[in-house]
């Protein structure tokens, strides 16, 4: 059976279903038997979800508009460069 360290090396592919059948089975067996790795996977998945959610915040999400000085500068920049 895989050790936790060996499982950790396969983990990213295991969670994305990117392993050949035999390796996937070996990982599955490990997870069935290892409480520590199950706990780690739960936290790992929660971390990914929190990362994605963190950028949904109103202060970092897509703003409704761009500050006028930035719009004006972009247009002026174009004219200045004769594009």
């Amino acid at each position, binding site marked *: 059976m895989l050790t936790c360290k060996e499982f950790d090396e396969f983990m990213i592919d295991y969670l994305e279903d990117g392993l050949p059948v035999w390796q996937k089975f070996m990982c599955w067996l490990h997870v069935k038997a290892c409480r*520590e790795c199950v706990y780690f996977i739960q936290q790992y998945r929660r971390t990914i979800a*929190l990362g994605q959610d963190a*950028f*949904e915040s109103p202060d970092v999400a897509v703003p409704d508009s761009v500050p006028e000085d930035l719009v004006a500068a972009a247009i002026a920049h174009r004219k200045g*460069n004769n594009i």
Partner: protein
Amino acid sequence: MVMAPSAVNHPSASEFAEDGDGQRTNNEEDQLLECLRAGDESCYEKLVRKLGPRVLATARRYLRSEADAADCFQDTFLVVFESINKFEQRSSLSTWIRGITINQCLMRIRKQARRQEQSIEHMLPIFDEHGDRIEAASPRQSAAISKLIDTEQMRSIVRQNINTMPDDHRLVLLLRDIDGYTTKETAAILGIKINAVKTRLHRARSALRYLLEPVLEQTS
């Protein structure tokens, strides 16, 4: 080390995936594109107003200062204006511009003096001599985020922790987990191998898990 962007000015559709814009948006973008190619002056401003918010949000995500994000915004639109006639429409206009924005961010990060970066080695999982997992005691686990935190505080904590990561790892995390690029696309954007993307992503997620451990306990 952050590698040179693989396609500086013209990200191709194969490198940057379609972003699922609706038909209505695509029609609007098609009209805008036609108008830009016809050289209608008012359309340049319309483009900046329409897609500028997304460009600015992307630049703010990748760059650590507002001044850099504003400069990146200008650089992005300069490249867009210069290249609009070469745009081959293999992706939507907004997808193409997002690719240019990210390339401009990466170029800016690469040019900046290397930050004093914190190693993430001590944040990675540790194993004993038999390969069994040992949970490292998180230094802040008991240091008490004792009061309940609300959603916005949580989001802010997560963003701060992502921002403390070394750029190598932070960029892979942003491209894969936040912007939704595939592993292959991320490898192409950063000019690194697919296995390097996987390794960095796993390390970045593991380090972030370590950093967030005190709040993970609260939110599980």
